């Protein structure tokens, strides 16, 4: 029975890797502000979308100052930037591991 369970676990691992490979085309990081008192919907403050083909779109928070210049909300921006870095690092680690997994799993008898 344990062998059957292991075989099943390996199949699940293979399916997991296949699904992962299909899901990695776009990396999206969003930072939203939330007004807890009024029960309002979250408001998008910053968004970064990185595509596998290299396209990169970022929306960063800013306010129009009294002088007419756009000023970036540094607290939000720093948090968002930190999240983007973390997401890229995490994605890189996951992809590296998944690619390594593909080799042994592909040898499993079906």
């Amino acid at each position, binding site marked *: 029975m*344990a*062998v059957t*369970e*292991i*075989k099943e*676990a*390996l199949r*699940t*691992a293979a399916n*997991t890797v296949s699904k*992962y490979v299909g*899901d*990695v085309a*776009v*990396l*999206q*990081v*969003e*930072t*939203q*502000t*939330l*007004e*807890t008192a009024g029960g309002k919907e*979250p408001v998008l*403050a910053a968004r970064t979308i990185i595509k596998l083909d290299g396209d990169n779109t970022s929306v960063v928070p800013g306010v129009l100052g009294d002088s007419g210049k756009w000023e970036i909300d540094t*607290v*939000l921006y*720093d*948090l*968002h930037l*930190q*999240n*983007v870095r*973390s*997401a*890229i*690092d*995490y*994605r890189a*680690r*996951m992809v590296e*591991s998944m690619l*390594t*997994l593909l*080799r*042994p*799993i592909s*040898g*499993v*008898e079906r």
Partner: protein
Amino acid sequence: MKPDVEFARLDAMLDATLGALARRARADTDAEANLSFSTGGDPAEAEADVLWSLIERTREEQERREQPLSFDAMGAHEGQADGQADDGLLARAQRECSQLMGQVLGTLSHPIVVETGQGHARIHTRVGWTGDMDTHLAGGTTRAEIVAHAAAMEASLAASGRQLRLLTMLLVASSRIAAVIATPGAAIVALPIAYRCVRDLVEQWSDFHP
């Protein structure tokens, strides 16, 4: 510490053990040519010796299944006590391996959620398994809370990355052990042996990375 640096020693330990196992297998194959294998106090070779005994038990088990039922096949042979001990190790490794894989795969396919703040969470981040990240930030959140949240995020992502890394090591070790077993279905039966190998090495490695 960067994950690659953190795991470098563990990778090296695994490589040394699997290398010793391959040499152990060659020594067995070339026994007629009088090539010898000695554990000689080397931890990698000692571990390889244990793994080799498990592989031999696995092979015997496979052969027994292919033969008609007989008194001998039921285990009444020389060295039965040792064999039973190995069978116990294998069964335990199979059970634990199956549990671990289920656990890791389950963890990976669920999003990581990190919340920071008192009472109602002031910062809430959800990370999908592909790295997609969604953060909600309540008004009035302090910089200190953001810093704390970033640290918590880093720890959670690192823990998830370590789990996946161990799963990777397990399957890579399994494929190399399957090559040593070299019988039909080896990929399946090698996994619990690989699990035992990786588990033991992680225990040794943890002494250097408490």
